[in-house]
């Protein structure tokens, strides 16, 4: 498990221990990865983050069109493994969690401890976030590479 | 009521938390007032659950009342707290002797003699029983650690110790059949379990039990139910009870459906105590 910000580590470790999730990705609503567990390739992380953020954005738009509140979570049940996407508010803005799990656990367990993860992240987030420097195009690739290095421990 | 009992009763009434209950219960027991002695001993034990003297006292009272299985448990508890307690070793030896297991009786008397070689009564008992005891393999124990007393079933119809009997559950009703001790990783520590068709299922069942203690603890904690004690499972083919001898182990007791669940639960509790003792002293 790797995280860009240290305060995310403990809540995420707790979630992984209880949920038995196989893969977990935490990202901002724009798809910027905050933490990951279980992925072995940076390309997979980037792809999953982009797709996950896109799915959540589409679904939120759909809910808006239907005139209802935002969906709390999306679950896709597969034969061998399933996937849950959940968007939630944090002091650092809106984040998305992508969780892949197998039959050794259940969607009920994953959701139960995902809710706990959300609460623990809210409690652990530093009070005064460090303001991010403005993102310039020439910095973007450097920032991305640095993030990927941190997420994969290289 | 005699003067000493009156005085001790008054003292205990004035100071309910004092240790006067030890003297009072013993005095009542010596006068044959075992019911009153039991109440006093129980009350004192509730206040001082970690006091070996209190467990020893209760065991003597229960032994006088003929509650030999309860006496065994109480002396076992005293030994857990104080492994060198000769009175408990002698008490358990007495119970084994009453049950006809002279070999186990001798083993416990010899341990008592190692602790107190000057106790003449122990020497005499060893000599007497030693001449009658059947051949018995010497207990192997790490130096400095007394081997645990083998638990005895209610009714004390102890089976002779045989090489096939598990050291953990030997002496319990049915031996170690239908009893399984499993560690947190799903590995069998002792006992055996067979399917209704007679196939060995111990290792397979043990593997399924990996993590069950943690999961049960999580469930009771998150639902505000405290710590978990037991899980009872009723199947048309049998009753299973899971208990927790230590935080790192799980005990499973399995019996046919003809035995009521209450009986299986009791068996599981006794087996868990035996397992705990074995884990602490092995």
């Amino acid at each position, binding site marked *: 498990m790797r995280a860009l910000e240290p305060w995310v580590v403990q809540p995420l470790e707790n979630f992984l221990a209880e949920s038995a999730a196989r893969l977990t990705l935490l990202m901002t609503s724009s798809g910027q990865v905050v933490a990951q567990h279980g992925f072995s390739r940076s390309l997979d992380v980037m792809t999953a983050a982009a797709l996950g953020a896109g799915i959540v954005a589409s679904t939120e738009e759909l809910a808006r069109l239907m005139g209802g509140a935002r969906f709390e979570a999306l679950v896709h049940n597969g034969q061998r493994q399933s996937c849950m996407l959940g968007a939630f508010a944090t002091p650092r803005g809106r984040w998305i969690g992508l969780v892949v799990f197998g039959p050794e*656990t*259940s*969607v*009920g*367990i994953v*959701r*139960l401890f995902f*809710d706990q993860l959300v609460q623990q992240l809210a409690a652990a987030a530093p009070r005064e976030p460090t303001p991010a420097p403005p993102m310039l195009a020439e910095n973007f690739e450097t920032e991305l590479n640095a993030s990927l290095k941190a997420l994969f421990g290289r | 009521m005699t003067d000493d009992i009156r005085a001790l009763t008054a003292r205990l009434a004035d100071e309910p938390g004092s240790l006067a209950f030890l003297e009072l219960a013993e005095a009542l027991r010596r006068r044959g007032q075992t019911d009153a002695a039991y109440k006093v001993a129980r009350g004192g034990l509730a206040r001082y659950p970690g006091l070996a003297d209190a467990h020893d006292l209760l065991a003597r009272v229960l032994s006088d009342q003929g509650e030999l299985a309860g006496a065994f448990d109480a002396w076992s508890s005293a030994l857990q707290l104080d492994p060198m307690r000769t009175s408990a070793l002698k008490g358990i030896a007495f119970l084994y002797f009453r049950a006809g297991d002279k070999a186990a009786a001798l083993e416990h008397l010899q341990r008592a003699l190692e602790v107190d070689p000057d106790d003449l009564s122990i020497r005499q008992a060893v000599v007497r029983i030693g001449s009658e005891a059947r051949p018995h393999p010497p207990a192997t124990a790490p130096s400095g650690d007394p081997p645990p007393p083998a638990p005895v079933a209610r009714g004390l119809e102890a089976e002779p110790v045989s090489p096939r009997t598990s050291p953990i559950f030997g002496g319990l009703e049915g031996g170690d059949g239908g009893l399984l001790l499993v560690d947190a990783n799903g590995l069998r520590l002792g006992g055996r*379990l*067979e*399917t*209704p*068709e007679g*196939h060995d*299922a111990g290792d*397979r*069942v043990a*593997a*399924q*039990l990996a*993590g*069950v203690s943690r*999961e*049960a603890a*999580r*469930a*009771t904690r*998150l*639902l*505000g*139910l*405290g*710590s*978990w*004690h*037991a*899980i*009872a*499972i*009723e*199947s*048309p*083919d*049998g009753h*299973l009870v899971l208990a927790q001898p230590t935080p790192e182990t799980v005990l*499973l007791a*399995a019996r046919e459906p003809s035995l009521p669940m209450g009986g299986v639960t009791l068996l599981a509790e006794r087996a868990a105590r035996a397992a705990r003792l074995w884990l602490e002293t092995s």
Partner: protein
Amino acid sequence: MTPATQAALDRVTRVAGVRGALVVAASDGLVVAEQLMDGVDGQAAAALTGSLVGRLARTAESAGMRPPAFLHLRGDAGGVLAAPGPDDLVLVAVVGPDANLGLARLEMIEAAGRLG
């Protein structure tokens, strides 16, 4: 909620000491229907009990036994009872320490058979 489900919950919650009852989809650990007193977390009860029931059913199976008809998890301050029914549904009750367990068990076994 089907009439059978409602009837099952009513029967169980009438028993003394029962703090709540729910019907759970065991494999998913999700609530199908519930009738709970304040303070009982239905989502947690469903997820945790569903998971435990599955594990214990596999334990019984590995011991060569048919699936359990009733389960009781006993804690310091109460317990959880579970009676599996058809179609992966489980009737679950959260009980206090002084609940009438015998009656709850009988009601649950009978009601669970009529779920679905």
